[in-house]
């Protein structure tokens, strides 16, 4: 859906590049069907793969009976008991509903629903400050929908805050309304079927209302541990987060029971990490290897309208760990070449490399805000894994013309106070 939104932007650009096209309307239903069909084909693909690998697939909801036995309940209600030597819990999480807000459950939807809507969500209020909230608000805006994001305190809390504010600044400039420091009080349905949301501005204590077609909650996710009857197996969870406690081998408090992915405590909630953790665990269980998962320097990308790719430490984390005196931050505001013809605003296109100050200046973190951020960041993540230093990166010849080359051209440090705007071709 992010791609659909980006394509809308590209249609706009296209006319500047000579294509005789007027900005067309967007048909949500057509997009949703195409996206949903692809997802269904992936469902199918996975089923086939399981079959090919001779994995028995049960469409059951499982819970523990005892440490070695699980009870699986089918859609029809039939129960089956299954026992195993090893059990891996990978139940993930589901979006949280803020049930303390009146009407939240009855009238709001979550990311579980948005991708499956057959009809356009219309004017939408997204509540939350996570990347889920911003990504959804981002593509909804890009598809031409009136979109508001309500953030209680700071956006993208776990990320570098300078980058987070550039991300939201970009969204605000490009049509998403952002309400900062507000929190909803209640959601009511009006006679015409629309939703009325009442919220309070936490600073002024003033109340306000707004009318929306859809309210999308993106206020965090809860691990799927409640229905598992973990206590029957003796598996312990973190009482605050409800996530399952695991060690470096992904083992729970019960030696033969493991947990991977979003349901495990202290793990980054990312697909590729879960995939790799699962694979390595399986290899260890079959005694094929003893490799443990390395959760350090996991790269990621936030797919907001202007994408943010990052790997390693945020500037705040680096300073906290090493002290401001021992950290050097190189940065640049750049303009993607493709932006010039359609005169796109590049004010938030920004790169920041956080290094140790001491030569050879080991790279601690890289932050890239711009188009195709994921593609740009992946290779550099590998560089960091190889122990790249600022010297290494600077000695790499740039590929011209790209945005990624700007990383290899970072010269201005924050400490110097010089203007970090890139000039010249």
């Amino acid at each position, binding site marked *: 859906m992010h791609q659909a939104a980006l*394509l809308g932007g590209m249609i706009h650009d296209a006319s500047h*590049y*000579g294509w005789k096209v007027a900005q067309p309307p967007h048909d949500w239903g057509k997009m949703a069907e195409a996206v949903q069909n692809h997802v269904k084909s992936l469902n199918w693909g996975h089923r086939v793969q399981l079959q090919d690998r001779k994995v028995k697939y049960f469409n059951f909801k499982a819970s523990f009976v005892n440490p070695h036995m699980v009870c699986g309940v089918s859609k029809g209600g039939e129960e089956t008991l299954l026992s195993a030597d090893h059990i891996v819990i990978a139940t993930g999480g589901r979006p949280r509903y803020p049930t303390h807000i009146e009407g939240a459950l009855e009238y709001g939807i979550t990311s579980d629903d948005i991708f499956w809507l057959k009809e356009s969500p219309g004017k939408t209020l997204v509540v939350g400050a996570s990347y889920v909230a911003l990504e959804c608000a981002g593509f909804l805006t890009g598809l031409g929908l009136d979109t508001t994001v309500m953030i209680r305190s700071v956006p993208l809390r776990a990320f570098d805050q300078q980058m987070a504010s550039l991300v939201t600044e970009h969204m605000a400039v490009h049509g998403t309304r952002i309400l900062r420091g507000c929190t909803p009080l209640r959601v009511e349905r009006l006679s015409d079927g629309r939703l009325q949301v009442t919220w309070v501005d936490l600073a002024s204590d003033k109340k306000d209302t707004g009318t929306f077609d859809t309210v999308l909650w993106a206020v965090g996710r809860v691990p799927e541990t409640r229905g598992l009857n973990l206590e029957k197996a003796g598996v312990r969870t973190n009482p605050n987060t409800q996530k399952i406690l695991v060690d470096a081998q992904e083992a729970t408090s019960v030696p033969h029971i493991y947990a991977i992915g979003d349901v495990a405590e202290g793990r980054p909630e990312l697909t590729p990490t879960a995939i790799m953790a699962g694979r390595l665990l399986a290899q260890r269980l079959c005694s094929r290897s003893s490799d443990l998962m390395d959760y350090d320097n996991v*790269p990621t990308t936030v797919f907001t309208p202007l994408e943010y790719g990052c790997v390693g430490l945020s500037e705040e984390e680096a300073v906290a760990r090493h002290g401001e005196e021992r950290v050097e931050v190189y940065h640049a505001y750049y303009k993607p070449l493709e932006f*010039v013809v359609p005169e796109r605003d590049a004010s938030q296109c920004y790169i920041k490399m956080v290094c140790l100050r001491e030569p050879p200046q080991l790279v601690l973190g890289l932050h890239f805000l711009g188009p195709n951020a994921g593609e740009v960041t992946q*290779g550099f993540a590998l560089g960091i894994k190889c122990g790249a230093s600022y010297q290494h990166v600077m000695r*790499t010849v740039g590929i011209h*013309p790209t945005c990624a080359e700007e990383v290899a051209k970072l010269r201005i440090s924050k400490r110097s106070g010089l203007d970090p705007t890139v000039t010249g071709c």
Partner: protein
Amino acid sequence: MSAAYPRLSSAAREELRRRLLGLIEGHRVVIFSKSYCPHSARVKELFSSLGVDCNILELDQVDDGASVQEVLSEITNQRTVPSIFVNKVHVGGCDRTFQAHQSGVLQKLLQEDPTYDYDLIVIGGGSGGLSCAQEAAALGRRVMVLDLVVPSPQGTSWGVAGTCVNVGCVPKKLMHQAALLGQALTDSRKFGWECSQQVKHNWETMTEAIQKHVGSLNRSYQRALREKAVAYVNSYGEFVEHHKIKATNGKGQETYYTAAKFVIATGERPRYLGIQGDKEYCITSDDLFSLPYCPGATLVVGASSVALECAGFLAGLGLEVTVMVSSQLLRGFDQEMAEKVASSMQQLGVRFLRKFVPLQQLEKGSPGKLKVVAKSTEGTEMIEGLYNTVLLAIGRDSCTKKIGLEKIGVKVNEKTGKIPVNDVEQSSVPYVYAVGDVVEGQTELTPVAVQAGRLLARRLFGGRLEKVTGTVQLVQKLSSLYKEEPVKRRSPWTPTLASLLQVYHTLFWPLEWTVACRDSNTCYAKIICSKLDNDRVIGFHVLGPKAGEITQGFAAAMKCGLTKQLLDDTIGIHPTCAQVFTTLETTKSSGLDITQKGC
């Protein structure tokens, strides 16, 4: 007791002599010294007390110190250090220098004003030339840049900043983007955008927008030169005698300038076929980006990246495109990737005529059309075709013929037209240097020229007399860091090259292509690892969208010693194309299927 001096080959001797003369000519005071030598210390102290900046080469601290000492003795008849030069005059050793100081001769020598108009004149205001000039100016030198574009046979000309900005990287990428946007329009319908089915492209709108941007770059470069106090002259520069050039402007007016040092950064221009009608009827990349009319049905002659990139975007804009290739595509690139590039272009409708060359004549066919007769390179077959435009992209020739190099003895490679330089960019004439495409053995890329220009200026004027270390990595556009897969050769007593390499590869289907229903087996990723070196990644190739953005980071990682293990240990960013490199499993040698399942 005399130390044994290393035997120098005559070529090496000549080379060293040239370098030393370059140093002596280029600095006010040069002291050849040894760090532990007390006489050298006295001399250094003397100049320091006089407040005079010196360039000091400590012979005991450089690898070729003994050779330097030997060649110095040939130049000066003095074998020992310290050996002092003031304004190119050899003063002598420690005793003679103090004598000269006492008698007042030293002060006279020091007072001599530089006899040249400029410290540095750069001929050619492109990527390499401008970077060198600006860096030299930043180091406080008086610098001039001469740049004048000789109009193409079709009459096209442009402003300052060279090929990249005016008729290369920049307009090329923008036209490529225009073509990609055309594809995006097609994709967008599948994503729910109600675009009309047949969207037409207007060539003039595009070129106008692109030229507007190019013009703004010309102006911003001129501004930068002014701000850095670099004298920019829109004139054609050529040598008339040592240290002197003649600058001829567009009106034919001639002015003369002198400089202590020169940098030749004149780059290249497209080559013509050398057959009747070629200059009259054909265009090149020099003309394409500002062509005032749509090129229509185009024949692209050539197999270079320029040829394929132009053919690619012309097809993407909806034009009928044919590419005529005499032999190999993308010579110098991994040939498997080159073939994949070609077949992906064929999927877009580009027609390839392989192993043909245009024959003797090009002539006007019906109004607005050109008739091209071509003959096969492998037989007697002849073909004929009618096109609106013929675009020649068969290579580029260095601009070294008409700049008076023979007048001052700068050696040029007769065959290639390029200027051979040593590892400090110095030509056969000590005070003349060269950077960019005009240099023999230099990879023809903007960032390479820019970096070379900058480092050269620092070396010449930053006071540090070191060689540049560090290799430049070959980085190319579509398929990237290249290490050609060797042809499998069998020999009874030596291991095959191929067996020392492990190639991992996969086809992949970008997520954005799924809903757009684009082919699932076009995009391809390949890495080449050295088994001898812990499966170190020595080659990286990707065919797919955003290849440049993907490759850059991997280039940096390869510089840090990337291995297959590290790739496997790294988490992919999901969902991207780049992440495919973190999950490569299939080796070529296994022969296993890498086809992706489509819709």
